[in-house]
């Protein structure tokens, strides 16, 4: 405790420069915090994708799977539910604004229970077949609310009645489902039965993707193999992948901040290491006589070292705290940009781990910064310094 006045006095010897150092350190720690949170968000997007949910598509990109496969799939051991899904993509009134609606059938309640539709939402879809639910992000991007109408425009031929525009009533706003990562379009959910009744007869009874729930995650691979084997000679043949492995593949195949975020955070810290080291070295150099007096008064090397390390650690730890708070602000700004469609990234959450890592990094920077000044102080000729030589 008795060091605190000494450390405090040393920190405020040059107020303006101390504040500037603190600002630089805080910005670097804010960047570090954002990168850690971003890394965790991408990891979370993969972790949220469940192993016991299977995604089934055409093995050779046929684009459409007969819904009739559902009964055969349901008979395969380990399969507990099968749901159908169709993507319909086009543009809104402004043709620069792309929109994709994901139509699902009611079997998805069991096949994909993570889809964030409550029983009341499912009932609403049943009562209003031309209704849709938008995720918060999708609704914010389009500035729509419950009760509004959203349009989807497609080239001629998409509707059985010859029309090119689909009108959907917004039934509500839902959260993004867990694992809904960067590679997916905005979550907009519609009723597959409505789509079926609105498209050409020859296109009915087909889906883009089937989602399957299996009884246990460890059965997922075996069930996938069984499904592929069952449909090897079918037309179309099927390809099956556990949702979690699919998420991992997508993360690896696209430009992914997860891979580089930690490197960027480290570069930010390296940037301030020299600033911090230079600051503490300068401070010690200018106060050699003060340290000489302390040594003459009986302060040992260990106590002097503690004093210098505390002096180095005070701004870095403070900056880690400020940076953590700033990171939340910048993170919120980035989330706002994501909602506006300027950037696209998974939702970042405040994490105690990120905060802990920032504190550890702050201590490490302080220790490394203090090394050179401590070496200098150890070799100091106390008599000469006190005499002013």
């Amino acid at each position, binding site marked *: 405790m008795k060091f605190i006045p000494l450390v405090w006095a040393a920190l405020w010897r040059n107020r303006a420069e101390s504040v500037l*150092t603190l600002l630089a350190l805080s910005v670097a720690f804010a*960047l570090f915090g954002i990168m850690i949170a971003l890394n965790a968000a991408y990891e979370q997007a993969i972790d949220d994708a469940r192993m016991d949910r299977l995604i089934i598509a055409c093995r050779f990109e046929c684009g459409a799977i007969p819904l009739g496969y559902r009964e055969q799939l349901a008979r395969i051991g380990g399969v507990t539910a099968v749901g159908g899904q169709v993507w319909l993509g086009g543009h809104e009134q402004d043709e620069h604004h792309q929109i994709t609606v994901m139509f699902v059938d009611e079997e998805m309640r069991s096949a994909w229970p993570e889809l964030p539709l409550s029983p009341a939402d499912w009932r609403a879809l049943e009562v209003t077949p031309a209704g849709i639910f938008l995720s918060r992000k999708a609704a914010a991007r389009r500035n729509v609310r419950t009760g509004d109408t959203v349009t989807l425009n497609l080239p001629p031929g998409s509707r059985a009645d010859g029309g090119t525009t689909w009108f959907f009533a917004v039934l509500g706003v839902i959260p993004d489902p867990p694992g809904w990562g960067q590679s997916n379009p905005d979550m907009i959910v519609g009723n597959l039965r409505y789509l079926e009744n609105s498209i050409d007869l020859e296109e009915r009874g087909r889906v883009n993707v089937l989602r399957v729930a299996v009884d246990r995650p460890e059965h997922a691979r075996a069930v996938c193999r069984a499904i592929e084997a069952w449909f090897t000679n079918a037309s179309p043949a099927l*390809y099956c992948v556990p949702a979690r*492995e699919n998420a991992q593949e997508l993360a690896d195949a696209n430009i992914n901040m997860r891979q*580089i975020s930690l490197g960027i955070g480290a570069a930010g810290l*390296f940037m301030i290491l*020299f*600033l911090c080291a*230079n600051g503490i070295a300068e401070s010690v150099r200018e106060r050699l006589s003060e340290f000489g007096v302390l040594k003459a008064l009986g302060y040992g090397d260990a106590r002097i070292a503690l004093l210098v390390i505390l002096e180095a650690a005070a701004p870095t730890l403070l900056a880690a705290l400020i940076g953590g708070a700033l990171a939340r602000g910048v993170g919120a700004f980035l989330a706002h940009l994501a909602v506006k469609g300027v950037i696209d*990234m998974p939702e970042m959450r405040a994490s105690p781990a990120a905060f802990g890592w920032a504190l550890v990094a702050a201590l490490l920077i302080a220790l490394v910064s203090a090394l050179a000044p401590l070496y200098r102080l150890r070799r100091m000729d106390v008599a000469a310094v006190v005499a002013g030589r």
Partner: protein
Amino acid sequence: MTELRQIAAVCLVGIGSLRERYATALVIVVGMACVVGVLTSMLSLTAGLTRAYLRPEDATRAIVWAERANFDQSRSLHRDVIGTILDAPGIARSSNGAALADPEFLMRIPPLEGFAAGSLQLRGVGPAGLALRPAFRIVAGRMFRTGARELVVGVGAARKFGLTVGSEVRLRDGKWPIVGVFSCGADIIESYLVGDAVIVMAATRRQGFAQVIAQLVDAKAYPEFQRWLTENPALAVYVERKTDYDRRELGMNTAFFTRMAYVIGAIMALGALCGVVKVMSAAVRARTREIGTLRAIGFGATPVALSVLLEAALLGTIGAVIGAAMAWLVFDGREMWVWGAFKLHVAPSLWVLGLVWALVTSLLGGFLPALRAGRLPPFEALRAE
């Protein structure tokens, strides 16, 4: 003229004293190196992708694809309309009079074993496909034979998926052998398997091509080519210059990363800016007597202030060059796989961007200390300890 001489003289004095202040100078140099290093490294990814997709020869090429249907979005250019498209005006002709336009078939191939092994893609090309790619070279094995169930694999896909001459991939009608490995001047097609489009379509029982790539006589031929195709009542197609198409597709897919690079670059620059202000303020403080002496012997306030500003700019520039050089040494030419194989490219434009980024940051950071240096009263400065 006197002012200029004074500026030069003060700058030389300042730079001369950098040796004694090397530790503080290092703060700016390292800070800027980190900022520019991170910025150029991140942007080297989009530059590399752009280089792989946007080929110089694409400037006189156009791409034609079908308007989308509900299902089967990627292969809806029916083979019946291909002849009509190849009759469009403005398409260059080979010596034998054949149109230099190639209908292409695209599809993803699932992994032979296991799950989620990445996205191996197959491109079916016709006779004009190779004429459109003069850099195409077989580097191992041989070329696939027209009409045969054979494929060749690009060097990028070969490395990524461990494919080589003698490997097999499974299509709908069974296993197809890989008979050769090809390179194509770092074109993105090096990430594909390539085979005879007609045979691949027959094997996969598809009737539609994905797109037609057409070599035009020259860039001026495009408007007429586009008008003829889009106004033709027998066709329902989209037409776009190949460069515009690639730039649009690439822009959509890389926008997030590019914007993120600039956001991160700006945050780091803000941190570096605070560092520059701190370091240059300390430098002015350390040089107070020197500045006082200069002012006392007749040097003006402007040359003194400018010398501080120029010193910050010089240190920032050195840092930017080091940062960009580090990014170039570590990342330039390193192969990556994002939708296909490509090499990271620390393009000259990124060096320039890094320099400008560092210069602006350094000059902004040096402004306040420079102002303070210029306003130092000579007598007070001379009395400073």
